[in-house]
């Protein structure tokens, strides 16, 4: 019997059996949330290994050597080219190909958090550089990440760092640092912003490299968040990330990404505490969160609307397609997520804002294209049937339900699937079409 104990705010480790079943559904839930919808192999491996091992692997796992080489090859070439679609293409491609889906997922999370748009930066190589910086620090200590972002040339252009000079401070970066990156509204004053802006004077970029200009820097005394001294940029970053509000602010954002956008106050507090305990180290904190009872609480399942990137990349990964980059870029862009060009410094609103009648039809249409016979080389249904030994309609349907819905679908939908007959690849395409057009598929 299922435990009726309320786990919604409990960060202690989820124990398979006692706290609920560790089954396809639970494994699919974890992998989809902490990455993208899994392939059959990823799913089977997670079910076999259990939640703890799976989470450790998600956080600590290395890129498989062959994939790493392949991706690095493209990354190098793209970094040289001056074309934003190539950067987007490379990024999406990596999301589809990587053996470290959590890392890829975190890069999108941080891109949304430190939302920078190439529309102003106008330099694909610098956007690439920012992605690299996010990649290096995305699962490390938050203070390091903020430090890297504060020195990131694209960020400096985006928030007018070059015009922040002694005597004429530009507050753009200081304001967003507090409001959007670390504390949230209500935890700082206008005076904190003014003083902090002075601390970042002279933090410029030249020819795409960070440079600190002593002569432009205001070395005078400042008071920020209650601390007075000849504070520099790194001091302000330290004060911000160590402010009690920072852990709470990050907790809400991370919970929204991985658990629920409506967390119980108790969950926010305990996860904020967890973050502080780990010195805002993302990897270590996420290990706790992703393996927690709260993560697997029934109330927290199937309540998160997939972003366009999650929808499209997840579909490619679970169907094992080697999708060309162009349709990926176009699809997510049309669905409202033009990567590297977020609508504003606040990033995308997300969740229900992804869904309206137009984007809904676009999602259906993407499924249609994906499951068409010979559909642009996307879904290789015959190969998939062969490699997974799907030689009967029953096996095909079981496979399809597992990779798209973690094995669980409403009874009414089963009836539609039961009518499918014919060759395996035909059944597979049609089953996928039914399953991926279901409302559940839009959620994770």
């Amino acid at each position, binding site marked *: 019997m299922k435990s009726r104990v309320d786990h919604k705010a409990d960060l202690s480790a989820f124990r398979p059996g006692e706290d609920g079943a560790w089954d396809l559904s639970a494994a699919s839930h974890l992998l989809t949330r902490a990455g993208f919808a899994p392939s059959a192999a990823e799913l089977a491996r997670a079910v076999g290994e259990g939640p703890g091992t799976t989470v450790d692997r998600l956080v600590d796992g290395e890129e498989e050597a062959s994939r790493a080489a392949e991706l690095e090859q493209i990354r190098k070439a793209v970094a040289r080219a001056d074309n934003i679609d190539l950067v987007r293409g490379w990024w999406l491609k990596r999301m589809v190909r990587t053996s470290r889906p959590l890392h890829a997922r975190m890069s999108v999370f941080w891109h949304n958090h430190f939302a920078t748009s190439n529309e102003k930066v106008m330099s694909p190589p610098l956007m690439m550089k920012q992605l690299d910086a996010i990649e290096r620090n995305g699962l490390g200590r938050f203070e390091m990440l903020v430090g890297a972002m504060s020195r990131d040339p694209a960020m400096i252009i985006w928030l007018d760092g070059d015009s922040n000079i002694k005597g004429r401070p530009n507050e753009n970066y200081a304001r967003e640092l507090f409001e959007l990156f670390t504390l949230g509204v209500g935890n700082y004053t206008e005076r904190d912003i003014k003083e902090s802006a002075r601390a970042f004077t002279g933090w410029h970029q030249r020819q795409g490299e960070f440079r600190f200009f002593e002569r432009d820097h205001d070395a005078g005394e400042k008071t920020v968040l209650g601390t007075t001294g000849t504070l520099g940029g790194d001091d302000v970053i330290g004060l911000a990330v160590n402010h009690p509000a920072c852990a709470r602010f990050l907790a809400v954002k991370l919970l929204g990404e991985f658990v629920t956008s409506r967390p119980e106050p108790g969950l926010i507090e305990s996860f904020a505490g967890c973050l502080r305990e780990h010195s805002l180290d993302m990897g270590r904190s996420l290990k706790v969160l992703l393996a927690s009872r709260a993560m697997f609480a029934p109330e927290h399942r199937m309540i*998160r609307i997939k972003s366009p990137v999650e929808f499209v990349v997840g579909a490619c990964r679970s169907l094992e397609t080697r999708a060309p980059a162009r349709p990926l870029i176009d699809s997510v862009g*049309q669905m409202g997520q033009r990567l590297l060009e977020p609508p504003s410094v606040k990033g995308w609103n997300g969740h229900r804002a992804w*869904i309206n009648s137009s984007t809904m039809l676009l999602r*259906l249409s993407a499924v249609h294209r994906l499951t068409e016979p010979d559909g642009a080389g996307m879904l290789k249904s015959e190969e998939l049937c062969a490699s997974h030994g799907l030689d009967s309609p029953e096996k095909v349907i079981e496979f399809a339900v597992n990779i798209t819905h973690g094995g669980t679908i409403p009874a*009414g939908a089963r009836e*539609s699937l039961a009518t499918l007959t014919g060759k395996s690849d035909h059944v597979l395409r049609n089953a996928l079409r039914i399953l991926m057009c279901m409302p559940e598929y839009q959620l994770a």
Partner: protein
Amino acid sequence: MATRREFLGSGMTAAALLASGWTLPGFLARTARAALPLRDERILVVIQLTGGNDGLNTVVPYGDDRYHRSRPTLRVREEAALKLSGPGGVDGLGLHPAMTAMKDLYDRGQLTVVTNVGYPNPDRSHFRSMDIWHTASMKPEGREDGWLGRYVDRTWKEGKAPPALVLDDTPLPLALKARSLSVPTVGNIDSFRLGGLGDDVTGAMRAVRKNAAEDLLFVQRTLIESVENAHRIESIAREPAAGRSYPNYGLAARLGQIEQLICAGFGARVYYTSLGGFDTHSKQGLTHEPLLRELSESMAAFMAGLKARGLEDRVLVLTYSEFGRRLKENGSQGTDHGAAAPMFLAGPAARSVSGAVGGVMGGVVGGGIDLGDLDEGDVKHRIDFRSVYASVLKGWLEVEPGPILDGMFEPARVLG
């Protein structure tokens, strides 16, 4: 990258962006169908005249000698002007002779001409002035939403069709930038078709979910609604064309598609499109007249199309430009940037419609054009454009104008 490729092809880039941007179901509704559940909501269609329309050669003060003296080569002669005299009109004012179709609307009481519209301290830069019109703010710098965008923010409900839609080959105008959602912009509504949704697919989609969370139900509702809408429109699209045709103009084609969308019950209450090319610094005669003809005939065809569908009482058309042009013509048979200019409102005639606020007043609102009292050679504004906006918001779209406009404006008496 801002290479020449992008630089030369900025028009093309915009088109490409649109093609890859929002696409909508294949709303090819060609005929009205009684079965279609049309909503009673009233609809606003805005036509932006980009470049600064020469108001003085659109609504011509032919009765004033100063006009004729100031425009030796460009003037419209008294005998050619389509006179706006008579009840509700103003003696000495007339429409440009290319605007016979709009004059017919005027004669039927379906067109209100609002003269002398502008704002204090007129800005003569295209960009800034357009931003002022778009944001309805005298300080447009840094504003991220437009007046119609704020209307969208107030009325949009999650999961519902967007309350506004741009039908144009340009990027989203600032007027429609909203915070809650990105208003869709489409170049052509024929670009999307829904296919491959068999009964098995829709059956599984519709199957009842027991104990489902609200998010799931929300997605399911939106999904079903979108699909039903698309199917309905597709079935209309398969019917033969009505046989009524729009003239062969770009604006007419866009208005024709707007008519289809309205008829298909797309659900938007604001449609936005534009007509460019009004920046007539030289050889104005070559371009201004065809543009006015395009505007006039397209608008009339649109009104006729709406009437054929029985929708004429529900749609109001509004036109404006970022500014008018200087009274005195320049040395190259053109005119330079000016200030106040006329706006047009076309819709059902107020007297023919029952109800509190029925339609346009007809006639001329704003009086004659005083060429004796100019602001640096330009027509002075006597009606603030925001009071026209206020009237449209309050009287037609039925929202409080105060929070949408930057301050309180007494609604102009353009609707009745």
